[in-house]
């Protein structure tokens, strides 16, 4: 047996033992639940929520190849991506899909760098396969996506971020679930492309892997994926069109919604259609390598999560009771998490000495190890990247947990943080 296989076997056994140990430990705390109901129930809910994601993801199966080959329009909106756009467009030209069934539309959203020149360079070498739409001024990602939809005629629209590259066989695999006429959208898988760039990108590599292979897979079991990633997702045109005008002009608390376009579009489709995840449709995306850029991105994502959670909560109960339960938990638990952290780490030592913080941090460590062991188990090659998964959970506890309240307090803001303040102000 190779060392790689032995380590994977160890990770598998370790993961199972850890999950059983966490469950047994929770049982030991049941008596305590009645003396501190709020935090007792919270603690059981968090553990059940996280472990259930892993459990349900075991039931996830990729859809078989149905031989589907519909006409597809790939829309790639782009703003100041001169370094990445060339590779991203070339990855679309290399797709294993009949060229006559493929429309490739690159939209330059008023970039101030050489993005347009790069787009035109690739378009010139593509025998007319890549069409370029140019906005003289920055109008926002949503406007760029909408322009791409209007410029195309294909029955399936695929969005690919301009900092993502797609594997040659990914497109065919992405659209296979659309063989089911009830499926309105499919979310592809995204790996981190710049994994070796910094400690932050390694952390995100583990996070992305678990977020897609566990969370989205678990949601897919109930045909209710709540966010089709902007990196690589396919939509049925007829599922988008009825709500497209609303989506383009979406407002929240009186302010135009300029970001969170992927989660918002997912919500538009999820109301009336099924949405699934396809793990074999793989893309690779560039993630922030610097702390400031990462925090800016996460704040933006949390703001859009706040806005879209209010929308999804209104209709998810009609989809599937289990999907609804877990969606509501995914909304409520992050709101309580900072209070629980203060309760355990600040109030705990004052009331109980070191016992409560120890139990809390052991829970966090167990969670971190569950994520990381899953990563080791399902990655092809063993690497030390899993250690960054452990670090990420503590990083989350120290920084990202507290972002939720800040994002809620500032959710009316329209600024991207990486785009001009005028983006989207039409």
């Amino acid at each position: 047996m190779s060392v790689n296989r032995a380590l994977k076997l160890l990770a598998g056994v370790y993961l199972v033992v850890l999950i059983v140990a966490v469950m047994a430990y929770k049982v030991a705390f049941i008596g305590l639940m009645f003396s501190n109901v709020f935090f007792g129930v919270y603690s059981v809910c968090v553990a059940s929520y996280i472990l259930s994601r892993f459990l349900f993801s075991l039931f996830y199966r990729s859809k078989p190849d149905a031989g589907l080959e519909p006409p597809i329009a790939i829309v790639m909106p782009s703003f100041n991506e001169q370094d990445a756009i060339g590779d991203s467009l070339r990855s679309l030209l290399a797709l294993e899909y009949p060229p006559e069934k493929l429309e490739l539309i690159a939209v330059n959203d008023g970039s101030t760098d050489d993005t347009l020149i790069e787009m035109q360079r690739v378009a010139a070498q593509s025998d007319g396969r890549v069409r370029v739409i140019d906005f003289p001024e920055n109008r926002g990602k949503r406007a760029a996506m909408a322009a791409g939809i209007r410029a195309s005629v294909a029955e399936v629209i695929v969005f690919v971020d301009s900092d993502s590259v797609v594997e040659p066989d990914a497109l065919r695999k992405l659209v296979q679930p659309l063989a089911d006429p009830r499926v309105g959208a499919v979310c592809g898988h995204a790996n981190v492309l710049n994994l070796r760039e910094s400690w932050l990108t390694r952390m995100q590599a583990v996070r992305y892997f678990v977020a897609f292979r566990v969370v989205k897979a678990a949601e897919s079991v109930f045909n209710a994926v709540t966010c089709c990633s902007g990196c690589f997702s396919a939509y049925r045109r007829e599922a988008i069109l009825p709500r497209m005008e609303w989506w383009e002009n979406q407002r929240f608390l009186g302010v135009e919604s300029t970001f969170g376009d992927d989660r918002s579009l997912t919500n538009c489709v999820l109301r009336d259609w099924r949405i699934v995840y396809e793990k074999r449709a793989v893309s690779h995306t560039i993630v922030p390598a610097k702390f400031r850029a990462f925090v800016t991105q996460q704040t933006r994502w949390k703001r859009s999560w706040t806005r879209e959670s209010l929308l999804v909560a209104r209709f998810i109960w009609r989809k599937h009771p289990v999907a609804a339960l877990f969606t509501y938990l995914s909304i409520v638990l992050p709101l309580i998490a900072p209070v629980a952290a203060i309760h355990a780490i600040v109030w705990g030592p004052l009331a109980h000495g070191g016992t409560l913080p120890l139990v809390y941090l052991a829970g966090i460590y167990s969670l971190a190890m569950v994520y990381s062991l899953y990563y080791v188990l399902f990655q092809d090659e063993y690497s030390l990247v899993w250690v960054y998964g452990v670090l990420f959970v503590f990083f989350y506890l120290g920084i990202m947990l507290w972002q939720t309240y800040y994002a809620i307090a500032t959710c009316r803001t329209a600024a991207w943080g990486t785009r001009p303040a005028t983006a989207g102000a039409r």
Partner: protein
Amino acid sequence: MSLLERVLAKALLPASILPVVLFGPALLRAPEKLWREARAEVQRLQAPRPASRDQERRTP
């Protein structure tokens, strides 16, 4: 990557169990300890309080 680094990288996975071993005894005692403390707190709150002087005066 040197041989030592490769060995260390692989040894880190089984070594990750160490914090659990280190804090294991305290973690195993934690549920009972917290439960005892919570019960003591409940008993303290439920215990009859000594009557105040005001109440004593009003008592016939």
